[in-house]
């Protein structure tokens, strides 16, 4: 399991071996990570991976079975939510419909015993931070979806919590608004420097918004790394498949030396990289190559550091910025392969039924235990 690089500063959040079991299911298994002050972490995973349970344990809605949660130097695992300095934005926003936007934002200040004096100014200041200045008198149902999001953010931040939690608040929005709000969250988060944990199943959101991504599956943290490393150097087969469009070629390891692996797939030998030195020749492996790292090559056009394989076009789709090819690979046992041609205007379109040679660099083939 990947560990966070220890920062020089005291972490704002430290989880140590936090676990939660629901009946027979282990929802979260010994989750540990540190989070530096001011950084943005995304917990990414499919539904049911335990990410929401983990977030709710940090928020205080669910009590962990074991492990410790330290927030700003103080252990909080036994504290109720109202005693933790955590702001939270929910997927359903959970605005109070009987209060105006300003009353919603003032609510945590009143509940947390902030002085009355200056409260109205503070509420107005946070409303303008989220670009809702002057709309404080409106009720939630008089605001658009995006504006409601902003009220929820202002309400979660107005009391200057140590930590901001985002429980998939963007999942219900349409794509355009979601992408706008991703950048908006990031802007506000940078402006205020608030440490943030975001939960999502949307890989794009994770890549766009985060300083660090924590990929979860089956209650376990699979990888914790920055977005580029998570995408470029997935820790295991699950992470490789969850982010991006990845082709998996099942085979056997022929040899492995200094991270360079040779894999045999249905009699074809392919070179690739393998980060797992424990694998022995003969082990069942999955060789993975991303759809955008595969190209269609003319005959005899391949470079010495490339593998080339014959394929047959099954389907081709034009998506504006790319051709998406579905191929069948007779020399790899007929397995399907997906390929993105990211320069569709410069290349001819290959029709279904056409035989083509596809190629990828050796270093783009990642070898994982099957």
């Amino acid at each position, binding site marked *: 399991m990947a560990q966070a690089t220890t920062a020089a500063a005291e972490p704002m959040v430290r989880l140590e071996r936090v676990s939660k079991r629901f009946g027979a299911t282990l929802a979260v298994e010994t989750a540990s990570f540190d989070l530096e002050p001011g950084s943005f972490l995304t917990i990414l995973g499919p539904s049911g991976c335990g990410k929401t349970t983990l977030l709710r344990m940090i*928020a*205080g*809605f669910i009590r962990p079975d074991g492990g410790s949660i330290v927030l700003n130097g103080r252990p909080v695992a036994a504290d*109720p*939510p*109202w005693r*933790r300095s*955590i*702001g*939270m934005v*929910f*997927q*359903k*926003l*959970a*605005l*109070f*419909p*009987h209060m105006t936007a300003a009353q919603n934002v003032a*609510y*945590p200040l009143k*509940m*947390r015993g902030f002085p009355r004096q200056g409260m109205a100014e503070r509420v107005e200041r946070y409303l303008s931070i989220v670009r809702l200045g002057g709309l404080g008198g409106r*009720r*939630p*149902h008089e605001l658009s979806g995006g504006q*409601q999001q902003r009220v929820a953010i202002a*309400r*979660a931040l107005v*009391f200057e919590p140590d930590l901001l*939690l985002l429980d998939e608040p963007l999942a219900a929005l349409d794509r355009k608004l979601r992408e706008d709000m991703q950048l908006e969250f990031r802007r506000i988060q940078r402006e205020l420097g608030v440490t943030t944990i975001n939960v999502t199943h949307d890989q794009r959101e994770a890549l766009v918004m985060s300083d660090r991504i924590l990929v979860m599956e089956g209650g376990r943290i699979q990888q914790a790394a920055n977005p580029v490393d998570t995408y470029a150097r997935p820790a295991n087969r699950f992470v490789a498949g969850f982010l991006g469009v990845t082709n998996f070629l099942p085979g056997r390891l022929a040899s492995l030396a200094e991270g360079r692996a040779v894999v045999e797939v249905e009699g074809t030998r392919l070179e690739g990289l393998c980060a797992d030195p424990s694998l022995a020749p003969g082990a069942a492996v999955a060789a993975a190559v991303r759809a955008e790292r595969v190209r269609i090559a003319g005959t005899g056009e391949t470079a010495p550091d490339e593998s080339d394989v014959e394929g047959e076009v099954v389907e081709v789709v034009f998506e504006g910025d790319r051709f998406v090819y579905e191929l069948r690979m007779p020399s790899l046992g007929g397995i399907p392969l997906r390929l993105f041609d990211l320069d569709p205007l410069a290349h001819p379109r290959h029709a279904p039924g056409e035989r083509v040679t596809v190629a990828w660099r050796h270093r783009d083939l990642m070898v994982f235990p099957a």
Partner: protein
Amino acid sequence: MASTIHDKGAGRPVGLRLLDLLEAARELLWPARMAPLTPWLFLLPAVLLTGLLAAGLIPLLDASLRPLDRATFRLAEDYALGNYATLATRPVYGVIALRTLMAGLIVTAATLALAFPYAWMMVRTQHAWLRKLLLVSLFLPFFIGQVVRAYGWLIILGKQGLLNALLDGLGLPPSSLAFTYTAVLIGLVQYMLPFAVLMLAPALTAVPVEVELASASLGARPFATFRHILLPMARPGIVAAGIVVFTLTLTDFAMPEIMGGGGNDFIASAVYDAFFQLGDAGLGAALGIGLTLVGSAVVGVILAFFGLGTLGYVEGREERS
């Protein structure tokens, strides 16, 4: 008959021709151009029923304005306010009215206070078995009926009852709750509880659990969340349940009759006595009119205070996001 479906000799199968016949009959009774009125047709039975009830008030009002002629034991031919004067001047009716109104207020407050946590638990619990248990316990008393339940309470509260046996066992002095006002109130609260819970549950279901979680994460302790979030958001259900419990209590007959032991009559008991003990239908009608007025006035005040939107007619359309 099974073969008739395949019988194409007569052109169309018998089944379809039967449908044609029905269709024609429908066209005759309720032509297609009447279709826009169809929704109103469904409203008609209910409107007729409530209308009938309102119309029933007219003969009642008529009777209430005719004092009893003590010579003939018939209601007078001419209108007079004698019955209402009797109600106003005989102190016993004031006492009964006050006792009934007080019971309405106390029972409503107590029932809502007990029903709210019950309904909340029923709506929010994660455990299916607990929800089922709460629901079954709620509906079980419905099958028993008010009279039997009242006698059940007498068994518990009576001199040789379970309560006194328990007190005796604990070495405490026996209580004499049976046939008291308190006994009537206890019986009524228990009777009203299911109604209140059933009306509160949907109102609480309409409050998303995330709203409660958000309130907690924003710094509110459970009581503050209840007071500032749950109470205002569940207001339609609370007001509706309150109105139902209050009016049911105000007009209740069996509980004060059985558990009050004759000394704790409500208005309904007085109505009964006027009609069937005194044989004075005029006085009984006046009591009935008075009860209707008091009940309507209280409900009117509640609705004026909280607004019609309280019942969810207007606010129910708000997005609860």
